[in-house]
């Protein structure tokens, strides 16, 4: 009798089971796209005076400083632990201007300028009350609840720091060219949201399949989005 043929059904069963398992372990897709912002969202100026006259040379494009972030919400992903993040205020600007953190994380605000900055979250003083940050000082704030928080400097109002507290690791910072990329996004149905310059500017339901997703998002400046969780 041939022993190889006696265990053949068992091997086939095991092979079948293994082949069914492999796709589950490797069920991730790539979600990518570009975000086109309207001119008023691309300009860095929040406050204008009486004049803004173009000079003799062509105007340099506004550098992206990471103010625009794309999120995938509603899709189950592996949770990540909270960690601290440092936001450095130097040269009258915050770096980064937008921080996405996991709920429960701590944010350190460091003043590297030679002037004082008075930081506060207006309307949510229980999270971050007004406090003067002297040159060289550090202030730590823990964000326990998911949501969007805008930290203002009352001395220099153009400094606005967006703190986005989430419980999902599915977010991507839009680069200078407007591109974003989620390399390992789980499949499923959810929503793609875009945050830019202190507010939600886009939201759309998406379904991520194994083929991935490539989106070309054009933000309409006439339709500001309310903050949506």
């Amino acid at each position, binding site marked *: 009798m041939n022993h190889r043929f006696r265990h053949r059904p068992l091997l086939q069963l095991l092979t079948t089971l293994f082949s069914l398992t492999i796709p589950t372990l490797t069920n991730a897709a790539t979600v990518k796209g570009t975000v086109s912002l309207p001119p008023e969202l691309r300009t*860095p*100026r*929040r*406050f*204008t*005076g*009486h*004049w*803004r*006259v*173009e*000079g*003799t*040379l*062509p*105007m*340099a494009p*506004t550098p992206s400083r990471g103010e625009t972030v794309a999120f995938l919400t509603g899709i189950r992903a592996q949770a990540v632990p909270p960690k601290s993040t440092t936001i450095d205020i*130097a*040269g*009258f*600007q*915050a770096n980064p201007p937008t921080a996405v953190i996991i709920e429960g994380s701590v944010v350190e605000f460091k003043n590297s*300028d*030679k*002037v004082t900055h008075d930081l506060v979250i207006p309307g949510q003083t229980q999270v971050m009350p007004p406090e003067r940050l002297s040159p060289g000082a550090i202030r730590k704030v823990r964000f326990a609840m998911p949501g969007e928080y805008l930290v203002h400097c*009352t*001395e*220099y*109002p*153009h*400094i606005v720091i967006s703190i986005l507290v989430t419980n999902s690791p599915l977010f991507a910072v839009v680069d200078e060219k407007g591109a974003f990329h989620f390399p390992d996004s789980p499949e499923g149905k959810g929503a793609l949201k875009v945050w830019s310059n202190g507010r939600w500017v886009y939201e759309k339901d998406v379904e991520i399949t194994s083929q991935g997703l490539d989106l070309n998002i054009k933000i309409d400046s006439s339709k500001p989005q309310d903050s949506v969780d």
Partner: protein
Amino acid sequence: MFLSKIWFILIGLLAGIALLIAFVAPHPANRRIEKMEGLRLDRAQYTAEQILKNDARRWIDYVAKLGRDANLVDSLDSASRGAGELRVLHETVRNRLRQLVPDRSAIGVESIIAIDKSGRVIARVGDDEGEYGESIVGAEVVADALRGYMSDDVWGSSNRLRRIGAAPVYSKARDRIVGALVVSVETAKRLTDVWKANLGVDVAIVLRREVLASTLPEALLGDLPKAIEEHATEIDSHKRTRALTLQMGNQSMLAVAASFAGEASMQRAYYVLLVQKTPLSDPWALLSSTSAEDLAWSKFPWISLPLGILVVLGIGLLLQRLEVEMPLQRLRREVQRLARLEIVKLNDTKFGGELGGIARDVNAAIEHFTHAVPAKSDTEKKDIRAILDPQSPMIDRKPFDVPTLKEAPKPAPPPPSAVAASLFGSPRATVPPPVSTTTDNIQKTISLPPLVASSLKIDTPQVVTPPVFSPPMPRPPLPVTPTPMASTKSLPSSHETEEEANDDHYLQVFEEYKKTREKCGESNAGLTLEKFRSKLMNNRQQIMSKYNCRSAVFTVYVKDGKAAIRATPMRD
């Protein structure tokens, strides 16, 4: 007095309307003044905004021009390329800036900052001149300048307000940006003084609920920031407030507040334009503020106004004369004629209203006095026979005496005309003398015991009617003059013979007797003057012989609804 009343009512109404206008008219004027003041503030605010805009452009152009300086360009270019020691570059740029702007305070510049293309401070003049090397690239006006924009801003930090202008510094070839210059201009006392001189209004600058500078005393501005904060929403939506009324101390001010542009708009930085509110006008305030010019001939109706007043008064006086004084005078003349016995009663139809009523009342009084029952006396209600013969069965059994010297009867009441004459002082009217002057019990009224003719009764109604008179005496009948007040004539005057006076008296009594009988509804048929006179003469003689008196006076009265005649002895 109808027209007079109407006239004075009209005058009163006009006066009331004038007063109403005087008190009400200022209100629309006050509103108009307030509106005009509000418009004035609106224009001032618009002008202030234009001044700010023009200033911003001026400073942008100023730093742009500064940025063309070759030394500055070279230094900043070197700093941007990282060539040269930063400290040396700092001093070079700083010194150059001092040379280019020798007197910053004179032109209102607080500081000038030179930065390289990365936003690093290379040098500054003014505030913190020794500080350099830090980055200010995050400031929006600086970032714009490094991108090629010339722009302005307003900063409200460190409890100071500064207007900022920034412009790029181009390379010598003007093909790239090597840095930027930022100028900071003072925005406090100097600005408020300039605005007050140019706009003609008071100015205050407020930053975060504190007054930074003002042309008004600080003591008045305590509540100003709070008052402006209350309108923050209005400022956010409309960039300014409407004209507000603010109470500052004991002054009422009109104010308009607007926010500064740029970052300061988020830092509650406002400029406030104020004017003192015109006090409300009322008649007293208007009168107290009258000047000599207001009373000049060309402005004040010195002629027409008094003339108008005189005309109005004249019309009123004329109407009063026509309706009040002249009728009063006419009435008085009538009464005087009555007193002189020229008439027996007033013609009340000639007078209207109250005067007619007075005339009618006088006539009623005359009537009353004429037919009034005399005061009680010893001879009252006694007929002549009773007086002459106390034993007559028909007389009052009460004992009586003909008034003697001691107990003179009450004199006959004077005729009404005599009473009227005495009241009005007519010289001709005389009050008949009393029967006796020794007693007070003198009959004042004139009354006669009842005389009886064929139906003539001298007695009281209970007295037996005597027979018909004897044939009349052979004497010519006396002319009967139908004078209504004939019976009211007094005793014959001194210039007539006694007999003629008696005849007149008999005639008067006769006339009155007839009238009284008619009034009482008795018939005068068969009643003749001759018979009547004869009877009176006889009775007179009897009285004179009995009482040893000079004469007797007869009066007519009504007794028990019938005419009667009473005789009164007269001693004088």
